[in-house]
């Protein structure tokens, strides 16, 4: 028997004992890992993926019950909550094989004393997060710990890959491969559109190593049921709450053992919780709420009780998208459009955990048109149209942070580090000149900042080692490691001290003492602000404001948008079959009567006057991000032809340019308006792009250490941080526009926020379509939800003087 077969047999011994049967993909993963391959295991949660990657590491030691010295395996997980579960399953396996290994968990929650113990006497298996690994790298002892480790597993890689935490993971792996040439790296990933790319990102683009993709081919059945409004004629055309359908939700909750109700924003979450409790008081005590602003203590309580089957329902946001399986959960309700296929599948998968069980998810539309999305989702799932996760590349902020990390952790030689990072997917294309700029930035601050010594962070020794000389700089750096930049939030505490969670600064700013607001499912009375903490007490009042949080508005993914368009074209093609679409027929008829339901080869444009002004509305059906960019672009191109001011609004279906001046629409709608050449230049010139970049720069400035968000407990106020990053942005814009961090900001805005590639494709498509201009008498079912949107951008090519004089005239006329 070969060595490998012997090892597999050893692994299977425990399975035999337990009466389990290993899946084919598990056996394959064991075999290839033992052969020294790296790769990706593509398997859904709860399918035994943990054991597919863990057991081969134990295999060589099973027969003689050995405990090797030092760290053998690092298990990277994106969320702390999962670490506990992985620790449990690995300890189970270790016990099963009679192995006396230890397993450490190291996350942001780990106590300082435990961390020191972990460094003194490393366990065989370390379960941790990308951030914690980078913090470990700042310790001079880290090399000794990592030296013995030959295996790294990255769990939920699809999750990490689409964020800068993925880049952090790549950088850590490049370090590990350098000190441990025999390293095997395995990623575990759910299905995404670009799995092959996911493997290249994880393992590096060189492909020198032996690598393989192992697919589990376990398909979960998903059943989608729409909660239908009784009369479509009376269901609102716009809105995002869906409370009208609350009565239909209660029986669903009552019928199943445990239900998760997902909302898209934290504010929606609070409102649904409150309204459900009002409508069905018997849910008190067995219904809970879970969102990202609630304290982690309360969240853990909710999770434990859900796990133990003590909760009938939990109202939650994406905070429960990932994490441990809650077996009692039988039913999922999604309120409002999930905007993406994989998010919807992920949520559906939170129910029906028994192997072979069907996951059931209810879709609750919050306005009439969302019924189309329900039908579109079902089609997308059936046709397996899953989104790609786009990896970040050339993120200079993350690289600068990593260079600092290495400098703090004992220093680096620049040529060696350059060679190391060039092997990653993210920095494959870096050149010496860019590298020189980054080093220069860390040594001297940037070109325009060299007058300020606080930006000079590194020193070089005589033998060419880059390191940090000041303890203060090292400490600040350790505190700043990470790539998730959240808005500065204020803590909410009871006067007696219990911590409830966090709210945004500007939300609290509107309150006076004794005002009431709803948070974490209870009415709270604002008592005072003390040392940056919002002190509250319980209130008996029934009404109160509900915190709304920035950034709650997701955009349709390109997959969703595509299926959505196909559904819309069904009207003219006469192929409507879904019950949701049939229900919408009266509304489609109305749209077609007032204006037009577009067909596949038409691009719909509506132009009409109301007492507000002249509405120009276009419908690319591409999602709000794309529309945001397109609206700015088209608005700018029109305003180059004539002096005009626009107020701009957009949703997932289209965008509106509202002005007080009549324009000759037929003349303006030329091919030039939708030209896709010179696109990036034109977009960069829009005020919008600059404004978004200015906001985005805060993240990049924080990650790269340009600004420091404060010592723990003494976090800087949001307002201050925002002002200082704005200042830096303007300095770069004026004096140093070729600065790498400044450039990165625009690249991120173009590719992730405005999705430039999608704008380009959308414009190309419009060029091939016939423009259908309709002049309805008044608003239409499609235009109404856009028109009533209050969150608006502005754009003007009129002079300030003209605008002021015009407003004066209008005001006097009124």
């Amino acid at each position, binding site marked *: 028997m070969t060595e490998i077969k012997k090892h597999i047999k050893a692994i299977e011994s425990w399975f035999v004992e337990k009466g389990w049967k290993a899946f084919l993909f598990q056996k394959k993963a064991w075999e290839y890992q033992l052969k020294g391959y790296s790769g990706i295991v593509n398997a859904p949660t709860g399918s035994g993926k943990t054991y597919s990657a863990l057991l081969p590491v134990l295999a060589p030691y099973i027969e003689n019950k050995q405990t090797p010295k030092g760290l053998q395996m690092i298990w990277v997980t994106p969320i702390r909550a999962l670490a506990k579960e992985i620790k449990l399953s690995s300890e189970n396996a270790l016990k099963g094989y009679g192995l006396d290994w230890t397993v450490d968990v190291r996350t942001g929650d780990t106590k300082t004393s435990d961390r020191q113990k972990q460094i003194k006497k490393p366990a065989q298996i370390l379960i941790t997060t990308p951030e914690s690994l980078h913090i470990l790298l700042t310790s001079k002892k880290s090399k000794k710990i990592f030296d013995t480790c030959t295996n790294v597993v990255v769990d939920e890689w699809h999750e990490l890959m689409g964020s800068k935490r993925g880049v952090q993971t790549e950088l850590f792996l490049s370090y590990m491969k350098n000190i441990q040439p025999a390293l095997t790296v395995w990623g575990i990933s759910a299905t995404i559109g670009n799995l092959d790319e996911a493997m290249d990102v994880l393992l590096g683009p060189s492909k020198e190593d032996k690598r393989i993709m192992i697919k589990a081919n376990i398909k979960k059945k998903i059943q989608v049921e729409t909660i239908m409004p009784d009369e479509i004629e009376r269901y609102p055309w716009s809105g995002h709450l869906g409370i009208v359908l609350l009565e239909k939700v209660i029986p669903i909750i009552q019928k199943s053992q445990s239900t998760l109700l997902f909302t898209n924003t934290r504010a929606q979450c609070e409102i649904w919780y409150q309204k459900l409790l009002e409508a069905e008081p018997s849910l008190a005590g067995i219904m809970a709420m879970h969102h990202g602003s609630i304290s982690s203590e309360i969240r853990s309580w909710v999770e434990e009780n859900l796990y133990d089957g003590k909760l009938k329902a939990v109202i939650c946001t994406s905070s429960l998208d990932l994490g441990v399986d809650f077996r009692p959960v039988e039913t999922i309700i999604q309120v409002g459009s999930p905007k993406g296929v994989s998010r919807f599948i992920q949520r559906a998968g939170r129910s029906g955990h028994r192997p072979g069980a069907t996951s059931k998810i209810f879709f609750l539309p919050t306005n009439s048109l969302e019924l189309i999305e329900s039908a579109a989702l079902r089609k997308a799932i059936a046709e397996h149209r899953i989104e790609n996760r786009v990896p970040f590349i050339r993120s200079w902020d993350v690289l600068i942070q990593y260079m600092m990390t290495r400098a703090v952790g004992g220093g680096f030689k620049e040529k060696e580090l350059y060679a190391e990072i060039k092997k990653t997917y993210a920095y494959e294309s870096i050149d010496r000149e860019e590298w020189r700029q980054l080093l220069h930035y860390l040594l001297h601050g940037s070109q325009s900042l060299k*007058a*300020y010594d606080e930006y000079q962070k590194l020193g070089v020794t005589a033998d060419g080692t880059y390191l940090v000389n000041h303890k203060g700089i090292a400490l600040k750096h350790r505190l700043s490691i990470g790539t998730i930049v959240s808005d500065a939030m204020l803590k909410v505490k009871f006067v007696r001290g219990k911590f409830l969670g966090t709210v945004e600064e500007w939300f609290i700013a509107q309150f006076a003492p004794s005002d009431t607001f709803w948070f974490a499912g209870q009415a709270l009375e604002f008592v005072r602000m003390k040392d940056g903490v919002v002190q509250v007490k319980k209130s008996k009042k029934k009404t109160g404001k509900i915190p709304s949080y920035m950034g709650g508005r997701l955009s349709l993914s390109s997959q969703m948008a595509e299926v959505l368009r196909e559904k819309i074209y069904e009207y003219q093609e006469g192929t409507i079959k879904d019950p949701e679409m049939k229900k919408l027929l009266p509304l489609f008829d109305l749209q077609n009567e007032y204006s037009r339901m577009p067909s596949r080869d038409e691009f719909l444009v509506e132009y009409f006057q109301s007492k*507000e*002004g*002249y509405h120009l509305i276009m419908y690319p059906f591409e999602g709000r991000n794309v529309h945001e960019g397109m609206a700015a672009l088209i608005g700018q191109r029109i305003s180059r032809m004539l002096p005009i*001011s626009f*107020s701009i609004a957009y949703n997932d279906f289209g965008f509106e340019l*509202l*002005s*007080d001046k009549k324009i000759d629409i037929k003349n303006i709608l030329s091919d030039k308006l939708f030209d896709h050449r010179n696109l990036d230049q034109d977009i960069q010139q829009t005020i919008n792009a600059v404004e978004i970049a200015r906001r985005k720069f805060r993240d990049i400035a924080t990650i790269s250490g340009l600004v420091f968000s404060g010592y723990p407990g003494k976090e800087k106020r949001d307002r201050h941080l925002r*002002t200082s990053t*704005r*200042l830096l942005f*303007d300095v770069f814009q004026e004096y140093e526009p070729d600065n790498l961090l400044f450039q990165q900001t625009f690249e991120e805005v173009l590719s992730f926020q405005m999705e430039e590639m999608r704008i380009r494709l959308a414009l190309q498509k419009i060029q091939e379509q016939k423009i259908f201009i309709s002049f309805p008498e008044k608003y239409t079912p499609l235009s109404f939800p856009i028109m009533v949107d209050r969150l*608006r951008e*502005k754009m003007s090519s009129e*002079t*300030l*003087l003209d*605008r*002021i*004089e*015009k*407003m*004066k005239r*209008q*005001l*006097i006329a009124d």
Partner: protein
Amino acid sequence: MHRWKPEKVIILGDLFHSAYNAQWENFILMTTRFAQAEWILVKGNHDILREAHYTRSNLSLSDYAMPMGPFLLTHEPDEVVDDLYTLCGHIHPGLRLMGSARQSMKVPCFSFSKQVGILPAFGVFTGLHILQPETDDQLFVIADKKVVEIPAKLVL
């Protein structure tokens, strides 16, 4: 400075909204360049540089409101003396103008009430305090290098 050749330049407070940095040197350079004028700073709540920095400049400092002719020059608007007209800064006054088609904008303004005149701040980072004017206040905004009067009743 070239065109009007003023005898006095009086700054109504909040000259340097920061701890010391290189910009202070630029300011000193400017005051030496136009040394024929007398430079006066009526100190505001943000003028917190160390004494030595002020001494090096050719600024005269006034810690209190300063009467001059018919005016009382102050930083904050609540300093009022009978028979004198207060001129001050501090609050960064601005107006919100609304037009049809959901147009609106905020602009810095001069505001003159019966006894107090407030001067605007034009800086990008200074922020604006939107005024709720009285009916007989006189309000002016600057648009493209022109001064435009806005009747107070339009922004009430």
